[in-house]
């Protein structure tokens, strides 16, 4: 099996190697992006948001199997986040403020980014990626929150250190009632 698919001369091999490299680039981007958040290097993280960023997390509701398609709130309905760059920049100012109580002392977060799937890389400049995450959060003496979900991103090629900007991030969170006192962290 291996021989067939990866013979050095076959174009399949070349395509596959390209896919591997792209997978590697995207994964490394996510891993490094996560570290920026988890090490509280927030200014660097906000610099990854492209000017037309949409940072969006719809609501999720409990429905019968029959109504499953109504599970997520839609555009124009209520949501958990639906920010553009101006709004995100405001969040950045809050976060870096000396009086940003909800994140000073800062949450200890850990973004585990897994199951990275590149859905579409046909455009030279944009990659559409789906990934799954566990986000562990620990705060103050003993607060613990564990979030899980899926991120559907549009990443855009950039000459910044990480190679990409985030052009769009849609987060499907695996909770109906948010099991935390706030969402003062980023996904």
């Amino acid at each position, binding site marked *: 099996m291996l021989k067939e698919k990866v013979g050095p001369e076959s174009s399949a091999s070349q395509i596959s190697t390209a896919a591997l490299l792209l997978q590697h680039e995207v994964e490394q981007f996510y891993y490094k992006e996560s570290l920026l958040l988890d090490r509280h290097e927030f200014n660097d993280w906000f610099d990854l948001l492209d000017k037309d960023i949409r940072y969006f*997390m719809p609501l999720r509701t409990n429905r019968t199997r029959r109504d499953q398609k109504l599970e997520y709130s839609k555009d124009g309905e209520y949501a*958990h986040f639906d920010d553009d760059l101006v709004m995100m920049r405001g969040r950045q100012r809050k976060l870096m403020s000396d009086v940003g109580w909800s994140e000073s002392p800062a949450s200890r977060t850990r973004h585990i980014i897994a199951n990275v799937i590149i859905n579409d890389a046909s455009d030279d400049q944009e990659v559409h990626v789906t990934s799954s995450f566990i986000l562990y959060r620990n705060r103050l003496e003993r607060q613990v929150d564990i979030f899980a979900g899926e991120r559907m991103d549009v990443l855009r090629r950039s000459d910044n250190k990480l190679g990409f900007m985030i052009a769009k991030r849609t987060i499907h969170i695996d909770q109906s009632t948010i099991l935390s006192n706030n*969402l003062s962290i980023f996904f």
Partner: protein
Amino acid sequence: MTTAKTKTRLNIGHEPKAFEKKNVWNVEEITALLDEENGTLDPRIYSDQDLYELEQERVFGRSWIMLGHETHVPKAGDFLTAYMGEDPVILVRQKDRSLKVFLNQCPHRGMRICRTDGGNAKSFTCSYHGWAYDIGGNLVNVPYESEAFCEDFNKAEWGPGQARVETYKGLIFANWDKNAPNLREYLGDATFYMDHMLDRTEAGTEVISGMQKWVIPCNWKFAAEQFCSDMYHAGTVSHLSGIEAGLPEGMELSDAKIPTVGYQFRAKWGGHGTGFYVGEPGMLVAIMGPKIAKYWTEGEAAARAERRLGSAERARQLMVQHMTVFPTCSFLPGINTVRTWQPRGPNETEIWAFTVVDADAPDEIKEEYRRQTLRTFSAGGVFEQDDGENWVEIQAVLRGHQARKRRLNIQMGKGRSAADNPHYPGSIGYVYNEEAARGLYHQWIRMMTEPDWDTLGPK
């Protein structure tokens, strides 16, 4: 349905005669929790398990509880599942456009009748043994009824408990208590202030579809009190970083001016309260952005609001209003977030929040309301984040014995409000004030101690 347990406990000491639950705290003890004269409050009001259980009967079993907005359930069969205190209910639009609210508990062996958040239903079938209810909550089918049941079984007696339902300008309230005053009477002079959000146009309001829910490990009264009475935290340090988040790029926090002019209202009866700034739209701009500030204060919509409310001040000048309708319906006219504080034990609250808009507002304004309330007052909101931080920590400290025995200060504005303002009904004082908080706790104590609406109700 009165049980033996209840009966044997009735005639003890100073206890009210008609409550069902046994009284670990007696009337004097409950009354002493608030000392209005000296302006102090016993912190156990927030942390005591026994008080919490009494509350479920006496406060949440007798008050008008807000469940949602009429536009949440526009069509016949549309329903929401919701809570009144810790009791789950189903709110359903009937074919005749009326609303029904009934306990989400199957009277057979107790199963939750409906386990979804909402939808459209023709009937509800219990997943345990298949008892079926129509959308009015009437038991309409019992499998093997004739083969298996007994002679005195009567389906008509076995529907889930029904609550009273009334609405005020779009908001839906329910109440378990048949003797409670009707909603209008219960709201009393508070409607004057509710109208600032609900009655700016003859089209009324509609909801931005959806209900956001999250959990704060704190007593619900911190939240209810804050929206009732506490402009002080917004005018001092709680939300400085939230304001910072809303400043136009380039403007510094030190350039932002926090308003100091405004009023606070304590309801004559009922524990409702509100406060607001007058003039100075800067804070509204910082929270909701210039588009909404303009919509609220200028142009046709504001003019129409002025006509309906009868005063330019009420329609255009009064802003960043906070309000609580006792016990757990809170909202911010102008910002238009609406929420209930759902008690989940003395140390935990769920917030269920939504946003309303003028039904005839331009789409662009509706969208702006959606995005700005999301950005500011929601689980991830730049304002709401910090309330969550404070309430959680207050509650955590109350694990301490010293912390629970030191009475808190609730003196602000004591003796300074008065019921003689020509423009505003109720007892009116300075915007930075705790008079409305004292009103809230006063009403809470009355509900916790007075078994009879004859003495408890508004005159």
